[in-house]
C-alpha cells in the first residue's frame, strides 16, 4: 500500500495543516516509508494471538465522580491568539 500526492494533500486538509506544493513529495515519501514498515509487520503470523493493548497487564485507571478541576478560565485562555472576555475568538466557522 502507498499514498499518492492527492492523498497527502487530502490528509493535510483534514488535519488543517498547510502544506506547500514543494513539501508534498517529501511528505509522500515519509508516509510511504511508514506504510512499508507496517507492511513488513503484516508478514508476521499472529493467528490466534490476542491483540496487546498494553505492555503491562493492568486494568484501566478510574476516577471518582468528584469535581477537582476547572475554574481556571484565565489559565485556559492564556495562550489564545485572540479572546473576547472569557471566550476564545476564532475565524468564523459556520456549517
Amino acid at each position: 500500500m502507498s499514498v499518492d500526492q492527492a492523498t497527502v494533500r487530502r490528509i493535510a486538509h483534514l488535519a488543517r495543516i498547510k502544506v506547500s506544493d514543494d513539501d508534498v513529495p517529501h511528505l509522500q515519501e515519509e508516509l510511504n516509508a511508514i506504510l512499508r514498515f507496517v507492511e513488513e509487520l503484516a508478514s508476521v503470523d499472529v493467528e490466534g494471538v490476542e491483540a496487546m493493548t498494553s505492555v503491562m497487564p493492568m486494568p484501566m485507571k478510574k476516577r471518582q465522580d468528584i469535581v477537582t478541576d476547572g475554574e481556571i478560565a484565565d489559565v485556559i485562555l492564556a495562550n489564545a491568539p485572540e479572546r473576547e472576555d472569557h471566550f476564545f475568538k476564532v475565524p468564523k466557522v459556520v456549517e
Partner: protein
Amino acid sequence: MTTQAKPSKLIKGATGDFEIVIGMEIHAQVTSRSKLFSGASTEFGGEPNAHVSLVDAAMPGMLPVINQECVAQAVRTGLGLEAQINLRSVFDRKNYFYPDLPQGYQISQYKSPIVGEGIVAVDVSPTEQIKVGIERLHLEQDAGKSLHDQSATESLVDLNRSGVALMEIVSKPDMRSSDEARAYVTKLRTILRYIGSCDGNMEQGSLRADVNVSVRRPGEPLGTRCEIKNVNSIRFIGQAIEVEARRQIGVIEDGGVVQQETRLFDPGRGETRSMRSKEEAHDYRYFPDPDLLPLEFDQAYVDALKAGLPELPDAKKERFITEYGLPAYDAGVLVADKETADYYEAAVRHGGATRDPKLVANWLTGDVAAYANSVGLSVAQTHIKPGQIASLVDLIADATISGKIAKDVLAILIGDEKDADPKDIVAARGLQQVTDTGAIAAAVDAIIKANPDKVAQAQAKPSMLGWFVGQVMKQTGGKANPQAVNDELKAKLGI
C-alpha cells in the same frame, strides 16, 4: 427489513403509497458531577470556559482518566434497555476539525461499545404497542459550544461542555411513522429519568436527536436515508420526519434520486435543508485511543448495578395493572412520569386506608392532569397534595358529595383554598349531598306542581326525565344525590 408494511402507517404520494422508515441516534448527557475524562464540573451554564480543565482544552501532555460513575450510568442505562452489556469495550478517536473540539478528535467508542443490542417497548396509542430495537449504546465526549452571531467574521468558543459524558443510543430502523418516533423518544426519556442517568431536558440540550429518515414503496428494500441533525424537541422530531418524508417522496415521484446527506430542520419555515456538505466530512479516520486502556469490568459489577436499579416503567405499569386493577392505558399514563406514579400511590394509600384505585386514577389522569397541564407542570409538581386527592375521593366514595360537586371542590383547591382539606371545604360551605328523602321529595313535588305540561310530556316520553332531574338539582344547588332524585322522580311520575 422485509416485514410486512402496516397499511395504517402508509402515506399517500401522487403515484401510490409510501412507507417511512425511521431510525434514531439519541445523544443523552450523562448525569454526573464531573466530566468523562477530567475533574471539571458538568454544571449547566456558568461563565464561559469556567468549567474547563487543561484536559478539556486539550493542552499538550494532558491524559484522560475515566470517571467511573459515567461508566456505571451507561451500564445502568443498558440494563434499562434490556441490552447486552459488554464486559470489555474500547475507546476510539473520531477525528474531525472544528474549533469547539480542541483535541481535533472526539473520544468515542466505535467497534466495541459498552452496550450492545437491546429493546424498548413503546406505547404508540391506547391500543398499539411496538418494539424498537436498540443497536448499541456507547460513551463519548461532548464538544464545546460555538457562538456565531456575535460578529460577522469571527466565532466565539466556550468549552464548558467540552468533555462532558454523552451516551449515544442508536436505535434500529424500526419506526414507521412520526407518531412512533415521538413515542419512542418519550419512552426513552422516561427510562433515562427513572434510572437517573440523564435528566432528559431537551431545552438545555441534555437530550438531542439525530433522525434518520428514508421512504420506500411497500415491500421494497430500504431507501436512501437522510440524517436530520440535532432536533431539539419531541414535537420538532415529529414535524421534521413529516416534512422530510414528503420531500423524499416528491424527489422520487419527480423521477429523481434521494441523495444520502445530512440535513437541518428549520421549524420556522417547516422544511429541512441540506447542510452545506463539506466533502470528506465523514472521513473520521477512527482508531483506538492510545491514551486509554480497554474498559473492562466483571459480571458481578453489572449484577450489583442491576440490583440497585429502581423499579422501571414497564415493571411499574405491570404492577399498577395487577395490584390496582387499572386499565393498561391508565397505568401507562401514570408511570410515564416517576413522580406522578409515586404521587398516585401516595394518594391511593394515604392515611393507611385503601381507596378505589380506579377512582383516584380517573381524577389524576382527568381533572387534575388537565389543571397541571394548564399551568405547565406535572401532577406531582402542582400544589395539590396526594392527601387532598385522597380526601376528595373519600368524600365521593362515601356519597358525601357527588362527582359534580367534587369538581367544584377541586376548583376551590386550585383557587382560594390551596392548602385546605376537601372535607373542611365541604363542611364549611355546606356542599354535602342531600340524601334526605324528605327534602328531595319536597323539591320533586314543587317542580312537578309548577310544570304540569312537562309532566304530561314526560309520561309520554320518558327521556324527558333528564329535564326534571336538572330542575331538581338546580333547586337544591346541585347537592341532591342524583340517584335519589332519579328514583323519586320515576316514582312520582310513574315512569
